[in-house]
């Protein structure tokens, strides 16, 4: 067995983000942030000489405001799984994506920041965050910046994040009651690594879909949006033939890689099926929320009462 982090000599536990960034800056790329640590505890990298434990930075939170949900970088998957406000976002798409990570003991460790920065091929959270048009907040030695999930996942985050930068927060916009969503992980077992991930978020108005966002992950190195399929669905009545078109179009667009879990031809075919299912599920969830709060304005307002279904009995 190879030794874990053989060159590691330093361990820091800063108490503020500012101190953490100073320590990272001085590390010149050889000190790395330690959040859940699930990949660092398996790393045999000889480059890493120092770890910055983020445990004391008070970044483990989920805060709800009028328009959005702010999730601290060290919140773990389990925190997302059992948070009522997270569950209400787009029919629970974010909650489903968090639940798709590993098994209970790993969901207690894996953090939001770690999951999006590491961006493994099979990672589920990035797929949902793209579908939800989330914003990523980053702090570095030259200050703070916010970038869209689309920009954050356009290339691998480890490539574009500077060594002195830290992801501090993920901001997810709240969705209206006419908005539904679904996340589907396709794997051999429910705790297994994904062969494909699909997320769909859409708004239901009458018989038609609007603002459809479809994202596919674990097909290629980076998750991506199926814009052509989104355009096909936009403002069109959701008929069985439209769903079939979405399915075949997906199979045509996706150019998946091969790995030990599935070959490209199989992935292409399954991708079409999953996209169809995700649209159907998202649609059904939008309907359910509409039934509870039909007739309300679509935009969240301060006076709007929160939906009180589920979990309170």
């Amino acid at each position, binding site marked *: *067995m190879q*030794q*874990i*982090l*053989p060159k*590691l*000599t*330093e*361990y820091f*536990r800063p108490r503020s983000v500012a101190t953490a960034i100073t320590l990272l800056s001085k590390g010149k790329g050889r000190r790395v942030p*330690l959040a*859940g*640590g*699930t990949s*660092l*505890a*398996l790393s045999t990298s000889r480059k890493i000489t120092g*770890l910055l*434990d983020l*445990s004391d930075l008070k970044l483990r939170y989920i805060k709800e405001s009028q328009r959005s949900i702010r999730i601290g970088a060290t919140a773990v998957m*389990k925190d997302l799984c059992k948070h009522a406000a997270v569950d209400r976002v787009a029919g629970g798409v974010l909650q489903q994506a968090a639940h798709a990570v*590993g*098994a*209970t*003991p*790993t969901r*207690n*460790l894996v953090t939001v920041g770690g999951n999006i920065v590491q961006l493994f091929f099979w990672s589920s959270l990035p797929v949902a965050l793209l579908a939800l048009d989330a914003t990523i907040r980053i702090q570095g030695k030259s200050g703070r910046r916010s970038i869209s999930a689309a920009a954050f996942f356009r290339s691998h985050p480890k490539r574009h994040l500077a060594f002195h930068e830290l992801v501090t927060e993920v901001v997810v916009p709240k969705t209206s009651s006419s908005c539904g969503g679904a996340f589907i992980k396709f794997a051999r077992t*429910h*705790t297994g690594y994904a062969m494909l991930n699909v997320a769909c978020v859409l708004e239901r108005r009458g018989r038609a879909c609007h603002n459809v966002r479809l994202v596919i992950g674990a097909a290629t190195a980076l998750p991506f949006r199926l814009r052509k399929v989104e355009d096909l669905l936009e403002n069109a009545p959701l008929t069985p033939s439209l769903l079939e078109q979405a399915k075949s179009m997906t199979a045509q667009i996706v150019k998946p890689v091969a790995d030990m879990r599935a070959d490209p031809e199989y992935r292409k075919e399954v991708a079409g099926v999953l996209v169809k299912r995700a649209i159907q599920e998202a649609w059904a969830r939008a309907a359910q929320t509409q039934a509870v709060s039909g007739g309300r304005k679509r935009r969240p307002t301060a006076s709007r009462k929160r939906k009180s279904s589920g979990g309170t009995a």
Partner: protein
Amino acid sequence: MKITTAINGQKKVLSVEPNDVLLDVLRREGYKGVKEGCRKGTCGACVILLNGKAVNSCLILAVRAAGQQITTIEGLGTPDAPHPLQRTFVDAGAIQCGYCTPGAMLSAKALLDEIPHPSEAQVREALDGNLCRCTGYVKQVQAVLAASRILKR
């Protein structure tokens, strides 16, 4: 470096290297109920409770345990007064070779501490990180549900 933790309710000062994995440190300290299986967070044989939450000790660097509460299987019951889970696992026949048992039992304990009367689905989810290759899972689920009924009384 030295870190202070509480293991099974007792204060412990441990001497660790920054790259020591918690699984190895615990076994070195004599907590042999913490089993090494896959060593990559898949099998759950090394599951312990960190501040009451089930986690894979193979995926945690030992330094992170500083100031935290650890529970291993050694902290559950005694031969004379076993924990309800230990009794029901035996009664239900949920133990065969026993290698996965400490991890599975601790996952079950974390669940019952949080949700004393779980549904079967909740039990299955709580045990989803513990692979068993002998008895399967039906008896384990029965055992956890039986323990929850004992705790109810």
